[in-house]
């Protein structure tokens, strides 16, 4: 029979925190940053299991770490937001309320469960003006930070953080913000040559300030490649949804498939 050893609370918390931090650092990073017309989320994520998701009209979610743990919180967040919007009004759903609920949940798990969540979450809400944008970063122990400008989570993010600190400025167009975010994700923590990340290794989405109602749009395909291309004049995602049949949450820059749009010279991109 083994004797239970005494472990001091400090040691217990420290062990849990180390455990969670190690788990989070193993994954790939996610960057969230403000640009002139909204908030952009960039994840290095070549697979179809999403790290970035829509929560509500003006609120989105990004996470790093254990997929099943943050997926659970993502669904809970959508439930929270939809129930609140249904019983009050759509305008009564805020990122602050959701961030608080997440923080309490993460904190409870961290102190009471034997294994803490190995995740970090970002909840962002796009406001009517850039000053009203809100970006909350939540860590495994339930601590919340209200961030301005940009957030890097997961991976060994020191290099990425420095890259963003040097490069980010207020009012960047989307293309510049994306190029900066990808440079930050590609930075080598050991200080060596940065990696090259192709558009199909990235998961990118925006909360577009100027859209009515649901502002979340994923950016994929030719449009993403075009935005990341330094030589291309495209600096913004189109303000109108594409005419292609299907879910309108994705902007790909692909021309509409049906024939009556073939002679339409302007297909998707606009740089107004």
């Amino acid at each position, binding site marked *: 029979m083994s004797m239970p050893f005494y472990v001091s609370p400090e040691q217990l918390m420290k062990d849990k925190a180390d455990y969670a931090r190690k788990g989070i650092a193993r994954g790939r990073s996610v960057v969230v940053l403000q640009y002139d017309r909204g908030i952009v989320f960039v994840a290095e994520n070549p697979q179809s299991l999403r790290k970035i998701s829509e929560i509500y009209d003006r609120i989105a979610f990004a996470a790093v770490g254990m997929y099943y743990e943050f997926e659970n919180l993502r669904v809970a967040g959508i439930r929270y937001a939809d*129930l609140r919007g*249904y019983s009050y009004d759509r305008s009564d759903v805020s990122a602050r309320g959701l961030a608080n609920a997440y923080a309490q949940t993460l904190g409870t798990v961290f102190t009471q469960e034997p294994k803490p969540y190995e995740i970090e979450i970002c909840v962002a809400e796009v406001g009517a003006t850039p000053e009203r944008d809100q970006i909350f970063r939540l860590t495994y122990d339930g601590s919340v930070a209200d961030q301005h400008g940009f957030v890097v989570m997961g991976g060994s993010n020191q290099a990425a953080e420095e890259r963003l600190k040097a490069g980010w400025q207020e009012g960047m167009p989307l293309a510049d913000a994306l190029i900066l975010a990808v440079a930050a994700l590609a930075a080598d923590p050991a200080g060596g040559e940065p990696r090259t990340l192709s558009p199909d290794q990235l998961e990118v989405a925006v909360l577009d300030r100027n859209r009515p109602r649901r502002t979340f749009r994923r950016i994929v395909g030719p449009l993403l490649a075009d935005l990341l291309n330094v030589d291309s004049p495209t600096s913004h995602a189109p303000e109108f949804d594409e005419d292609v049949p299907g879910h309108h949450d994705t902007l790909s820059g692909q021309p509409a498939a049906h024939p009556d749009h073939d002679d339409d010279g302007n297909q998707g991109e606009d740089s107004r």
Partner: protein
Amino acid sequence: MNRSTPPPDGRAGSLPAAYLRPGSASFTEFVAGVAPELLPGRRPLPAGMSLEAPHGTTIVAAEFAGGVVVAGDRRATMGNLIANRDMEKVYAADEYSVVGIAGTAGIAVELVKLYQVELEHYEKIEGTIMSLEGKANRLASMIRGNLGLAMQGLTVVPMFAGFDLDERRGRIFSYDVTGGCYPERDHHSIGSGSLFARGSLKKVWRPGLSEADTVRACLEALYDAADDDSATGGPDLGRRIWPTLAVLDETGVRFLSDDDLAVRVEAIVADRFGNPGGAR
């Protein structure tokens, strides 16, 4: 069983266990678990009583080559009185479907609101649009949940129309009060003026009609319904109140603007001058 009544806000602390339970992508099922009093049909009514509440009336829908058109008049009645002149009875449920409502207005509007959240909730959790059949069945189960109220006279009978992204065509579904869901061919109409509207559509609608002609056929059907049914509102030229009309095609739902409708409705009124039945 301990149920939290108000949805938790920031101060109420962490997310309750029901929020973190994996599984269902259905908002209605979730609400039934955490706050059932928010669902229409879950509120007990005193037995054997009936009350008078505003009723919505006529909705018409007709398919065309690239989609489907749904139109509704704007009147709500309470007995012999007009309760509302400019009520909206055709709602976009999501990007590719609309619901037109007839029956007890208050409950119908609540049901549509819940249904809109249901579809959006599924879209966000699953990351994809629900199939059109799936949407039609979800609506059926919500009407079934309202059966208790319906038996006390508070019936809701919607019509559902959508663009089927798999089959690339518009489709219409009708319902009965018990939640039966019936796919309809070509065109359909519900509500108190539906007999007259359906008769009108039978004579005017043809397969292969263009979008503009289908819009006209639907507006004429509403005109004919209003002509013979006092609960259906006709074009109100004085107040500039026009029917609500939605066109669904492969790019999604589009509601016609008041200016656009004014031109089309005024043309119909002019054509009917001296020819009230619209004989041709």
